[in-house]
């Protein structure tokens, strides 16, 4: 649906076949693990069996003596960092922590923490050699729960962490702590707001640790050349951040590192931080040969990702007629081994779907003995949405208000100031609610007993950051498009389409390529729902650059003043009805000065953020507590859908990840801090037999900050599902679930409690 009289586009809104498609359906596309180099060695990382331990001694001599072993490295082979913070694109990172995460320094902080690595002639020898590395540990007590880790007598993970109190006030204590950060936001008069409420509801929530779950494990192949130049082939969401992290970790100039992007088999935020490139580089430096390191699936679960478990408390005040008067939120997120949970976005998102006249948000970033947390699709927002959106639903239930109407009354819109400060520009929260309310799904009747329907909304900022592209006009009328945004879900095509639209040519005339860090301008990560927006802007700029040059060429050919020539409708028009199409003019480039190359960058544009509202029908088996998702509809403000199929795909994929998070996904730790379900068998991401078709409604409220109104779409769709499903479960079974995942045993317990209370 379109909510405005949007202009008619020729390319935007169509569904061309993606440019990399044939390679990907024939197996020809080369992913990180597919690289072959002469003299290639294979690396394996030895990982800690303990969740918390001091490394007393590492003896690698037996491993080094094994035939076929070429090198062994430990943290001693990675240069020390000292205390320094480095800006890595999406924020400043403590390099000592990042380095200690790549190869443990004096302590291991989670089971699976990398301790050493071996390069050998094949993986089997490398594996055997790892078993021959003798590591003496002094095992320490682990702390695995966010609230327990905040207690004063909790085991402390990092000696160098003090609480960073936002707002400038000095840290409460100089003692080492697990509480790395405190955030407080306030707006209005919270006390007065609650006093004005007719209904005040306070609820506590818990969410489990979950993983991004991309099917391709992390990988990196590095070649440390004799001239000191390092080349890394890897699948990454950001070649430039990977380059910078690798350079900073190895303490070599950024210019000495080249990162070559391989195709990437999913990321969802989890392939931004580097794990393997420095290890592969150190092994390559020692051996003088290229070294490939690939994680196995258990390592992916135990040592990468995840997104944090959390404790959240929400207090909501509402008047009898359904107007929000005040909110109070307390959020504590697990950072994992090192500071850096998405507590910031969690605090900013928790009340972001509504106009809260008065609110207070308090958040904590807390270290626990789990892998260092990383971004996962709208990081921090889903946890928060689960909490606030179920409280909203419960309030609606108590007041007898339709939950869609409640959102229409209180929903965020242009001009509303978020609790954390920013004022919304043109956004489409209300439009997504209206779309759900008007949908056949929401209007339909449920088909049977034990079924229930729930809705929930969600928000994500969407970021801008920096992108660069270069586009070269071929003499045959084709355009090659060079970009630095790795393509995880069809972005080559959505960028090419924006270039094509601007030049008035077809998407098929454009050949996009994702190239290495030496071959294109700085480009930030494929993340933050930014690529179609920001790299799109860069492509549009490059197209405009081409337009300007073509106008001059045409003026030369026609021997007229360039000011009398315009680029319009896929060609140049001049005085007296002079006209040449893009293609005709391209043919004449050799005789008018040769190549035309357009450059485009994006660096200043910011996005307005995006909202989604989901509607789900579930059936709860009253005897087992198992939930079947029967029907699912996503409505999302997508700005302008460039390639609707891939926009729908983002909504569908996000929704299903959210369904997995809602129902079954969680890290299951024993009391020693060992993850017991580090396989796809027991870490249960949804199979296709678990979910229905996911219907989508593309609400198009163009973002004025993009020439075509693009809004990032990738992240929002994971936010609403857990809450929407919780609300549907409440409707179906009469139980309010306050812990994720809402697994069958938990729902059954809730049903038993419900029955006992009767």
């Amino acid at each position, binding site marked *: 649906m379109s909510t405005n009289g949007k202009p008619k586009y020729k390319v935007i809104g169509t569904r061309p076949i993606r440019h990399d498609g044939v390679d990907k359906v024939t197996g020809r596309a080369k992913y990180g693990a597919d690289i072959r180099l002469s003299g290639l060695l294979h690396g394996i990382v030895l990982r800690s069996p303990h969740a918390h331990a001091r490394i007393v001694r590492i003896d690698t001599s037996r491993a080094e003596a094994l035939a076929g072993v070429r090198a062994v490295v430990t943290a001693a082979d990675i240069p020390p960092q000292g205390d320094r913070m480095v800006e890595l694109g999406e924020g400043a990172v403590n390099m000592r922590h990042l380095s200690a995460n790549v190869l443990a320094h004096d302590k291991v902080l989670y089971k699976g923490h990398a301790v050493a690595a071996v390069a050998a002639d094949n993986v089997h020898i490398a594996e*055997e050699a790892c078993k021959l590395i003798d590591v003496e540990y002094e095992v320490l007590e682990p702390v695995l729960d966010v609230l327990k880790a905040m207690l004063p007598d909790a085991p402390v993970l990092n000696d160098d962490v003090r609480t960073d109190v936002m707002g400038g006030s000095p840290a409460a204590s100089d003692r080492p702590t697990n509480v790395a950060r405190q955030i407080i936001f306030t707006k209005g008069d919270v006390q007065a707001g609650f006093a004005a409420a007719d209904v005040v509801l306070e609820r506590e929530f818990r969410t489990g640790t979950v993983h991004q779950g991309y099917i391709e494990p992390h990988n990196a192949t590095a070649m440390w050349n004799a001239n000191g130049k390092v080349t890394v082939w890897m699948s990454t969401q950001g070649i430039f951040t990977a380059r910078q992290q690798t350079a900073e970790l190895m303490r070599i100039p950024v210019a000495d590192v080249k990162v070559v992007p391989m195709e990437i088999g999913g990321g969802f935020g989890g392939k931004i931080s580097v794990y393997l490139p420095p290890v592969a580089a150190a092994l390559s430096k020692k051996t003088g040969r290229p070294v490939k390191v690939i994680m196995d699936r258990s390592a992916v679960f135990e040592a990468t990702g995840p997104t944090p478990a959390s404790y959240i408390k929400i207090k909501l005040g509402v008047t009898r007629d359904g107007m929000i008067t005040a909110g109070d939120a307390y959020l504590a997120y697990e950072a994992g081994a090192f500071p850096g949970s998405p507590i910031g976005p969690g605090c900013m998102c928790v009340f972001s779907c509504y106009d809260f006249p008065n609110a207070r948000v308090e958040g904590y970033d807390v270290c626990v003995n789990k892998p260092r947390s990383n971004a996962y699709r709208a990081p921090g927002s889903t946890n928060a949405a689960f909490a606030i959106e179920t409280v909203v639903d419960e309030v609606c239930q108590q007041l007898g208000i339709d939950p869609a109407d409640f959102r229409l009354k209180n929903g965020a819109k242009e001009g509303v100031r978020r609790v954390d400060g920013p004022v919304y520009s043109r956004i489409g929260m209300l439009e997504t609610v209206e779309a759900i309310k008007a949908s056949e799904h929401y209007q339909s009747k449920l088909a049977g007993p034990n079924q229930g329907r729930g809705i929930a909304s969600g928000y994500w900022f969407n970021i801008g950051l920096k992108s660069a592209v270069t586009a070269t006009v071929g003499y045959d009328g084709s355009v090659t498009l060079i970009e630095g945004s790795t393509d995880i879900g069809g972005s080559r095509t959505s960028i090419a389409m924006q270039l094509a639209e601007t030049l008035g040519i077809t998407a098929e005339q454009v050949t996009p390529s994702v190239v290495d860090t030496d071959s294109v301008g700085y480009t930030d990560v494929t993340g933050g729902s930014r690529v179609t927006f920001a790299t799109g802007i860069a492509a549009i700029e490059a197209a405009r650059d081409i337009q300007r040059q073509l106008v001059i060429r045409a003026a030369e050919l026609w021997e007229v003043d360039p000011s009398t020539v315009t680029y319009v409708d896929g060609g140049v028009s001049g005085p007296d009805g002079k006209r040449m199409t893009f293609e005709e003019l391209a043919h004449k480039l050799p005789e008018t000065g040769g190549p035309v190359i357009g450059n485009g960058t994006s660096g200043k544009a910011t996005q307005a953020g995006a909202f989604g509202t989901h509607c789900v029908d579930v059936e709860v088996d009253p005897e087992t507590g198992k939930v079947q998702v029967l029907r699912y509809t996503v409505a999302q403000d997508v700005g302008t859908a460039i390639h609707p199929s891939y926009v729908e795909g983002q909504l569908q994929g996000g929704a299903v990840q959210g369904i997995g998070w809602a129902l079954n996904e969680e890290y299951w730790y024993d009391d020693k801090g060992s993850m017991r379900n580090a396989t796809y*068998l027991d870490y*249960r991401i949804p199979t296709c*037999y678990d979910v229905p078709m996911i219907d989508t409604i593309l609400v198009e409220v163009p973002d004025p900050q993009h020439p075509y109104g693009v809004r990032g779409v990738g992240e929002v769709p994971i936010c609403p599902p857990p809450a929407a499903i919780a609300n549907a479960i409440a409707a179906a079974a009469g139980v309010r679930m306050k812990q994720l995942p809402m697994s069958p045993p938990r729902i059954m317990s809730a049903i038993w409690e419900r029955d006992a209370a009767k």
Partner: protein
Amino acid sequence: MRDFDYAVPSTLTDALALMAGASVARPLAGGTDLIDHVRTGRLAPDLLVDIKKLPELNRLEASPSGLRLGASVPCWKVIASTEISRDYTALVDSCRIIGGIQIQNRASVGGNLCNSGPAADSIPSLIALGAQCVIASKDGTREVPVEAFCTGPGKNVLQPGELLVELKFPARAVRSGSHYRRFIPRNEMDIAVVGVGASVTLDESGQRITDARIALGAVGPTPLLATDAAQALIGQAFDEVAIAKSVAAAKAIATPISDMRGTAEYRVHLVGVLLARVLKAAVARARGETFTYQPGH
């Protein structure tokens, strides 16, 4: 992966000689558990004896006297067998949910049994259907009822040098029916939280149960034959009262652990839920009604 040797004998005699050899030998059928266990270091064999080429272990013979199922016959052949689909439906129910389709194309029922997981999906069906294990060594053969085969998680009665050759099932009784179902959090690709298999035989009226065998998975160190739960049904009219008695008896022998797949309390509860559902389906099949198991639901 650990270094090991590989042999693919073509006669049972050769296979048994290899199994009795000096090195630590493991038979390799579908390998879907074994290869993973070697990779992760749970098992450390020196020799894998590929038993897929042995005629005795590839037997799939249904006759009026019963069914003989070679130990290396993959699940897909069990599912594809008209006779098994008609007369040993519980076994087909099991085979259809052992892993995904790809796993079923390799994994064998014999291997599932020899892996001896408490939650193995085929074992409750084998017990319910009264299957016997035929075990060979170079010194001869012996038979063991399936319910006596497993001795603990991953452990069974097989001695070094012994090989499971086949499973022998009695002929299906007139007016009998069987069913296996499990509870898993997803709809596919999980380990059973609880699995229940049952076989029932009805009298001529189709109302009274004349014989029954019930087996439970994932509620003890081994899959269990629930004798009392079956006895509670035999001679009774099949109704809610009989089901409730059977359920109570089945729950009484369930001694599950609490783990990431469910708490002990939840698992005991599921025994009751699943047994009631399994009995109704088995009785429906005994009556000649069509009951199609929709896994996960």
